[in-house]
């Protein structure tokens, strides 16, 4: 086998098998540190040996076996000073674990452990990217623009808390799963958004993070195929990512949905998103419970993507979908989005009146000022529009967005 093919195989196996191997070892050894380090070592051995000896027929099995040996070696060394009986139990006891929840999948347990509500959000994100996504600590540090040592400490501290506080390695009970799953989805969506509209730094889009979030979304979908919000989040990310090629111009400026070249959108991702949305519509029609926020957001994005041009968008459906979202989540940001859609139907004056009611709570949010600036411009109130653009530019962290807002401001007459 040639070099590049082996490298590709390792990359693919890494994406497909990393979480499975870590999760399997975590269950067997009851220690996330051991699981993660042994898995990393197994991949290092693979990277060294597979180019010479060829990719084994069952790469996942090969990695699991190698990682298990590494973990046992590591525990043997540790046992020189630690309780010997523990090692003996781990090495010789192969009895399957007790059933621990409605779904007996090691990876799902790992998801709920990494995203445990007792951990700070940033720790959940870091652990999820490391233990489920297989990103290295330097990669995660780079993605979130923090020092490598800071990120390493964050992960170490989270793992220490899991161990010391006995955060269980298990899927929550059926009663708790809905509540806890919302937190898991929030982690994945936060990773996606950090990649898609980076708040800081020089890169407008961090493809490594958006790809990783979609990978995690697909993994969750495999683990929880019947959950509507899991399907909704994956569809939402696919639709959003499909527009990525049209979203930043070659001069590094953000291109809004209105102005995007729709021919540049990724049709494969859109088709996959549409299939998920259709599946959810059928499930809801069959009495499967009302859609949650991710399903509604996915549906809104489906309406946008099916329109041949911005002016052909079915805005009344979008306003109706936002109306349902406001019922679920009356947050000012949802209301802002609804008001922007209202402006498309009832005119900029009506939209602006709705937006201005949110001034107090959203004064520190750049998108609020950007939306106001646009409506004021359409109403011919140039001076006020300019002031709103200035404020939006001050608050926007993303370079592509700043470039876009600056150009719009400079286009104002006078």
């Amino acid at each position, binding site marked *: 086998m040639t070099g590049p093919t082996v490298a590709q195989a390792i990359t693919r196996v890494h994406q497909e098998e990393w979480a499975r191997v870590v999760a399997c070892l975590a269950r067997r050894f009851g220690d996330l540190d051991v699981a993660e380090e042994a898995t990393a070592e197994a991949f290092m051995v693979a990277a060294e040996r597979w180019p010479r000896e060829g990719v084994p027929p069952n790469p996942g099995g090969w990695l699991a076996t190698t990682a298990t040996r590494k973990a046992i070696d590591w525990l043997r060394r540790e046992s020189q000073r630690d309780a010997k009986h523990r090692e003996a139990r781990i090495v010789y006891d192969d009895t399957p674990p007790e059933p621990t929840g409605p779904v007996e999948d090691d990876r799902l347990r790992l998801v709920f452990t990494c995203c445990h509500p*007792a951990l700070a959000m940033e720790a959940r994100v870091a652990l999820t990217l490391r233990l489920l996504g297989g990103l290295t600590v330097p990669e995660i540090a780079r993605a979130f623009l923090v020092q490598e040592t800071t990120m390493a400490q964050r992960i170490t501290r989270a793992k220490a808390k899991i161990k*010391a*506080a*006995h*955060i269980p390695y298990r899927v929550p009970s059926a009663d708790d799963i809905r509540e806890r799953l919302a937190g898991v989805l929030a982690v994945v969506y936060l990773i996606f958004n950090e990649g898609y509209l980076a708040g800081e730094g020089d890169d407008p889009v961090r493809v490594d993070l958006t790809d990783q979030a979609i990978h995690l979304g697909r993994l969750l979908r495999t683990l929880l195929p019947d959950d509507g919000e899991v399907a909704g989040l994956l569809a939402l990310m696919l639709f959003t990512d499909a527009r990525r090629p049209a979203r930043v111009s070659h001069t590094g400026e953000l291109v809004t949905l209105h102005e995007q070249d729709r021919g540049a959108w990724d049709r494969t991702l859109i088709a996959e998103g549409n299939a998920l949305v259709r599946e959810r519509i059928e499930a809801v029609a069959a009495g499967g419970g009302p859609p949650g926020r991710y399903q509604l957001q996915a549906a809104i994005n489906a309406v946008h993507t099916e329109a041949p041009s911005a002016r052909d968008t079915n805005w009344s459906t979008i306003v109706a979908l936002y109306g349902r979202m406001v019922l679920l989540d009356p947050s000012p940001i949802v209301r802002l989005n609804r008001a922007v859609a209202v402006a498309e139907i009832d005119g900029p004056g009506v939209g602006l009146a709705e937006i201005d009611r949110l001034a107090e709570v959203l004064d520190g949010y750049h998108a609020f000022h950007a939306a106001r600036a646009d409506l004021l411009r359409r109403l011919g109130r140039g001076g006020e529009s300019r002031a709103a653009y200035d404020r939006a530019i001050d608050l926007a962290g993303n370079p592509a967005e700043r470039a876009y807002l600056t150009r719009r401001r400079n286009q104002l007459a006078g």
Partner: protein
Amino acid sequence: MPRYLLSVHGPAERTDSGTCPSHEAMLQAFAATGAFNERLQRDGHFVFAGGLESATTATTVDGRGEKPAFTDGPYQETRECLGGFWVIEAADLDVALALAVEGSKACRGTVEVRPFRTAESVRALPES
């Protein structure tokens, strides 16, 4: 089984009804806390529990020097202080957190959940 300290924190300033808004509310909190304690005993979680007198009744001792030093008042000068606590046994943090939610409701206070150090975690400390 892992042990946890469930400590109740609230304002350092107390009135005749403790940190409760009224005497009735305080009596209700006592009754609810008593019922919660019985539930902990019944389900095998209970190790020890107690409510503390106000922080102004504390004396701080430093015995590290040649002569011990005694100071009137609590160690930390804060607006929030420890009001009482439970020591419980629970299978894992999820169980402890669920009990803490009940305890917090019963005593009308915020509860911090903290694991006890175990023999194993002490052994795992770095030697150097």
